[in-house]
């Protein structure tokens, strides 16, 4: 009897044959597919956000849950950032005889970049994971189905309200975080020297321009939107089971954090294009 032809179970050369789509590596295909699904999810958000009912009560409730409950974490980390940044920068500035520039340098660093990005990353961790896990467990325990049966559009009630809340509250958290970080910096300056509160903040605000504050503030809305969107997308599409809930929370943090950096990169390019840098 003739032996059957030997087939290599992982025939990599076979992947190069066939149609164009067959030649796309699986991981790239999955990435593109995921990006497409997230875009569709975002499109659904924009379609539903302008349609009644507006669920304002739920937006405010979520804003409280997301904003107020993250305030202490944001305040502590911002205070440490301001303090450490000042303590680390001081020796180098002293070496160049530019110690007087310390408040200005720290102010620009915090307002333009460090404050928004670091606080957004903290929010991606805390808020993104909590939304991902909450929606994931709602999906697994059929609460989303129960909501639909009760005559409620679950996408509108759960997803739209949470994305709106993160978009509106994360910029506020970042403003508060920036202020606390500057206060931490003021205390750090006074560990080795003596600068009055008024003089410190005068130097900070004198060095800041419109082009420093506005682009930094505008990008925080995009950070908030991205964190809410990814948290909701991952939770809402969670696979069955408790493992799925964990995965949703985890990937909400990973993708949310990555998007914060990507948005930051795009924001820098745009501000540079318009001559703000």
């Amino acid at each position: 009897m003739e032996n059957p032809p030997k087939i290599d179970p992982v025939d990599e050369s076979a992947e190069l044959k066939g149609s164009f789509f067959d030649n796309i590596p699986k991981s790239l295909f999955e990435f593109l597919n995921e990006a497409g699904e997230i875009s569709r999810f975002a499109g659904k958000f924009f379609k539903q956000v302008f349609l009644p009912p507006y669920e304002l009560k739920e937006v405010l409730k979520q804003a409280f849950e997301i904003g107020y409950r993250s305030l202490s974490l944001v305040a502590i980390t911002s205070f440490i950032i301001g303090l450490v940044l000042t303590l680390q920068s001081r020796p180098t500035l002293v070496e160049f005889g530019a110690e007087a520039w310390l408040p200005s340098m720290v102010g620009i660093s915090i307002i333009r970049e460090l404050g928004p990005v670091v606080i957004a990353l903290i929010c991606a961790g805390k808020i993104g994971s909590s939304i991902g896990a909450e929606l994931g467990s709602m999906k697994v325990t059929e609460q989303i189905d129960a909501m639909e049966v009760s005559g409620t559009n679950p996408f509108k009630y759960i997803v739209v309200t949470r994305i709106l809340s993160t978009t509106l509250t994360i910029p506020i958290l970042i403003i508060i975080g920036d202020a606390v970080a500057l206060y931490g910096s003021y205390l750090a300056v006074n560990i080795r020297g003596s600068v009055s509160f008024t003089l410190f903040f005068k130097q900070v605000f004198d060095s800041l321009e419109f082009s420093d504050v506005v682009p930094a503030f505008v990008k925080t809305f995009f950070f908030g939107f991205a964190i809410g969107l990814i948290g909701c997308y991952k939770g809402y599409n969670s696979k069955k089971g408790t493992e799925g809930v964990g995965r949703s929370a985890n990937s909400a943090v990973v993708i949310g954090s990555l998007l914060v950096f990507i948005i930051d990169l795009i924001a820098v390019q745009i501000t540079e294009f318009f001559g703000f840098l």
Partner: protein
Amino acid sequence: MMLKTEDIDQVKAKKYGEPVIEIKGVYKSFGSNHVLKDFNLTINRGENVVVLGKSGCGKSVLIKCIIGLLTYDAGSIKVLGNEVSQLPIEELDILRARIGFVFQSSALYDSMTVRENLEFPLRRHGKHKSKSEIQDLVEETLKDVGLLNAINFMPSELSGGMRKRIGLARSLILHPEIMLYDEPTTGLDPITSSEIINLMLNVQKKYNTTSITISHDMHCARVTGNRLAVIVNGVNYADGTYNELSTLNDPQTHPFFE
């Protein structure tokens, strides 16, 4: 409240009205997994049908298709004269207000108290109701399931049996004409299971509901069902009373009655 045998007989022996759920030639697949294949079942007003079948045979899929949580691939499901797949979302919501759905996991909203859980469908479907009317309805329904004292509890503070009862109360609050129970006694001890079965019978008696119950619990099937339907390979394989099916010498249905 425990029902007496004559009450159970009274519930089961009533005459049935016009068809309220008509399922004709329904197909439903998930990828290559063909769950329902030409499934047919008609349920008349006042009837209480228990659907039996092996795990994964499509029982839960069937009732989710009936309430419009899942769309079916082909066929027709008419509920109270409405073709479910063709209803716009506003009309589907109106139809859903006439159907109570008790989920397998109870599906109570974790972030809401028992009171808020019961108020939720009322505020969505019954927007014209005043605050005091809503409060009265919530208290009355909780009394029906014997859990008025748990009104301010969070779902995490409730036992499995209590969660099922609250889930049942939430689906009853709009006084539905049709009840869909998805494995109402699964995971409960025999005593709690009997309490749930008695509650279901009370509901049938008090609200005169038509119901479909998905269950593996043969005691539940025997006591609550006027009629049983057995799903095998995606079709309504056998349909009849408990006594008719239990005496069938069929290898597909016999194991359920052993």
